[in-house]
């Protein structure tokens, strides 16, 4: 695909925002005492890189992200907790930096919307099942919404005889 094009654009963006990456520029080795890379990654996994689109901070390799990770390491070394570090970044760089919203209300909305949708679907589904069950009880009566008459239709309207035969064959095997 034209991933080539966007990768070219991405490279262009990286080139604009940082030097082309010679290996040694990835200064990844200055950790304060008591802080491990795992700690940094634990925090970084919950954040996004603001410079590169859509890449979590612990995976991003641009020089900006390397510096951000160093800053995370430095703050962890000062004794801040994970949450404090993430909140600092969100405060400074905007809410897009966090992978899950920090603001409790936003977080609630993020999870409430699907929950609400599920509830709505569940209610509609239950009503639908109830209505279909009632029709099942009143054997074969199908009420049309747009017309006022009832119709006796014990067998579905569009059925082949082949399918009827197969149905009967299958029904045979059920009563065991």
């Amino acid at each position: 695909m034209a991933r080539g094009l966007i990768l070219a654009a991405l490279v262009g963006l990286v080139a604009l925002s940082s030097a082309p990456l010679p290996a040694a520029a990835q200064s990844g080795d200055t950790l304060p005492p008591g802080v491990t890379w795992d700690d940094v990654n634990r925090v970084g996994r919950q954040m996004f890189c603001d410079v590169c689109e859509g890449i979590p901070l612990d995976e991003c390799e641009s020089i900006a992200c390397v510096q951000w990770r160093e800053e995370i390491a430095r703050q962890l070394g000062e004794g801040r907790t994970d949450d404090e570090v993430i909140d600092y970044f969100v405060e400074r760089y905007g809410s897009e930096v966090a992978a899950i919203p920090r603001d409790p209300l936003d977080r609630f909305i993020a999870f409430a919307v699907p929950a609400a949708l599920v509830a709505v679907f569940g209610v509609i589904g239950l009503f639908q099942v109830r209505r279909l069950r009632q029709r099942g009880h009143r054997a074969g009566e199908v009420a049309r919404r747009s017309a006022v008459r009832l119709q006796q239709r014990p067998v579905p309207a569009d059925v082949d005889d082949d399918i009827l035969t197969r149905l009967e064959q299958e029904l045979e095997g059920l009563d065991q």
Partner: protein
Amino acid sequence: MIAEIGIISTGVAFVAAAYALIAALIGVRTRRDAWVISARNAALSTFPLLTVASLVLLYALLNHEYSISYVWQTTDNATPTFYLYTALWGSQAGSLLFWSWLMSAFTFVALLLNWRSERRLMPYVLAATMATLGFFLILNVFIENPFERYWLTPGETQPVSALFRPAGNSEVFTPSDGTGLNPLLRHLGMVIHPPMLYLGFTGFVIPFAFAFAALATGQLGASWIRATRVWALIAWLFLSLGLLLGGRWAYDVLGWGGYWGWDPVENAALLPWLTGTAFLHSAVVQEKRGMLKFWNMLLIIVTFLLVILGTFATRSGVVSSVHAFAESEIGIPMFTFLAGSALISVALLVWRQERGDLRGADQLDSVFSRESLFLLNNWLFLGLMVVVLWGTWAEAITTILVDLGLRDTIINLGPNYFPPVVRPFLVGIFILMGLAPLAAWRRSTAQRLGRSSLIPFLLAVAVMVLLLVTGVDNILALFGFGLVAFAGFATIFEVGKGVAARHRRGEGYWSAFSNLIGRDRHRYGGYFIHLGVVVMGLGVIGSTSFQETTQQTMTPGERLTLGGYTMEYNGLYDATAEDGRRMTIARATVYQDDDVVAQIRPRRDTFYTWDSNAQTMTPTTNMSIPGSHSTLSADFYAIITFWEGNTATFRVYFNPLINFLWIGGIILIVGTLVALWPSRQPATRVQYAPAVAAAQTSGDR
């Protein structure tokens, strides 16, 4: 010369598609068959025309015709022949042409196979397919034309890319070498992944076209489903393959230890897969019981719209993703097509629903019947789709709210958001996967269902107890394993019951098994697919819940431990590959319980290009290739994140059961092939009596 052939053939194909669309609609309006036949011929002609265009582009690629700007952008003199072929879809313009070609091919076959048996649907099928093809050809002819060439006007220093000769005595300019394909794309998985996805996407257009025709003509029985069931399954097969390959490529090459990032573009391919899966299941109910007509219409329409949305979102830069294409001007036309087809198809669906034409044998004899479980399945998949859609588009929606002043901040949802939200749906789906094959059609009771599912349930509990005893203490994972095991055992049980029944009548086990499958390939292929999904489920639970990772800086001789493995770092060395990339390779030995298990070589590849400003080769892309030791039980996977001198920082992953994911994927593919294999039984087709057929074709709808 060849560029002209390409330009003309795509142009004529566009005219043919547009004509076919108009002629089909005229034929419907005036009820004259001659128009419909003419439309059909025009539609059929698009396939050879686009084949010519694609072959022309392929020829240009193979012969390094750099005067064509597309060839220049995607290949260079050093590109191996294999990648010359695959450059056909390597960039925007070529991939659009490839898409159009696939669309015309599918339409060609669908028209020929179904012309006689679904005659009444044909005018609208033509309309829908030609509208879609015509739209993509608009993109291909007027906006992203792969046959643009470079022209140099005397007096200008830079050649300009254009379709037709610019003013001022310009001549075609042929560069001596191209830019070459991006290194990240030079991987087998990355090469096959796009065409698989395109096959899946375009494949779903055919069932949609038939559904559209059914809505338009009122032929709302199961005939449209029967005609397109195989298409839908084939499209689903390719879409699944595309998703699997994408995951595998990400795992192999991108080096972040995972296979699915919940990236917006990944989700864009997942969404139609979800509704497509629901459609495949729900269609069975309509064929067998005449129920769920509205659902099937809704599902296939939504699948089609999600396909267009997915293509649009990927190519127009609308979602912030690492995958997205660079911005181009196709955004607005694609949006127009998406909006137009959404409005038309939903309006048609609502109209038919309001009239009551989509009423079928809508009655449920029991909540525990198979129809009821299929209905629940529909709801679960639809809900899952909506939730993933929300997660992907929350940022866009809240951006609007921010711009309207209703909110302060944008809600941005990352990969951590999706698993907890998606899990409840997966739980339900796996439960249904186990229960539904055990449930009976029509009348059923809770006791009956409970009786049939008792043994699989007990076996699943036994598995959970076994895992608990052997030290697995993660409650969620335990529950997940039990659930997946239940679905697996239930499926095996169903197959076993059938084999046992035949065996009782005197067949040997193996012949009973193969005859059983042969008799009902669709059903037993489906069971294999479910087994594949079960195995994949095991892989996902293992590699998510029990993944361990660490990152450490090491000097040669140092060791690190993870997941029962010990890795000793031996040293670093440099090498240069044939295509000019510089590789920095680390050697490491992997031990398990003091036994040498593997030698792994994670490495970093740096690609260089010529920088004319600096007059030197400068590094551009940097790839991280993992070194891994794969067994059935786990992957031990290491990548280099940084190095200086001989000191290297490694990020190491321990991914248990990850290979179950790929194995399950293979089982899924095999199962689909079994389901697709033509049955020995004669096809059950509705045969119209000649008189009726003649009356219908003359007084055509």
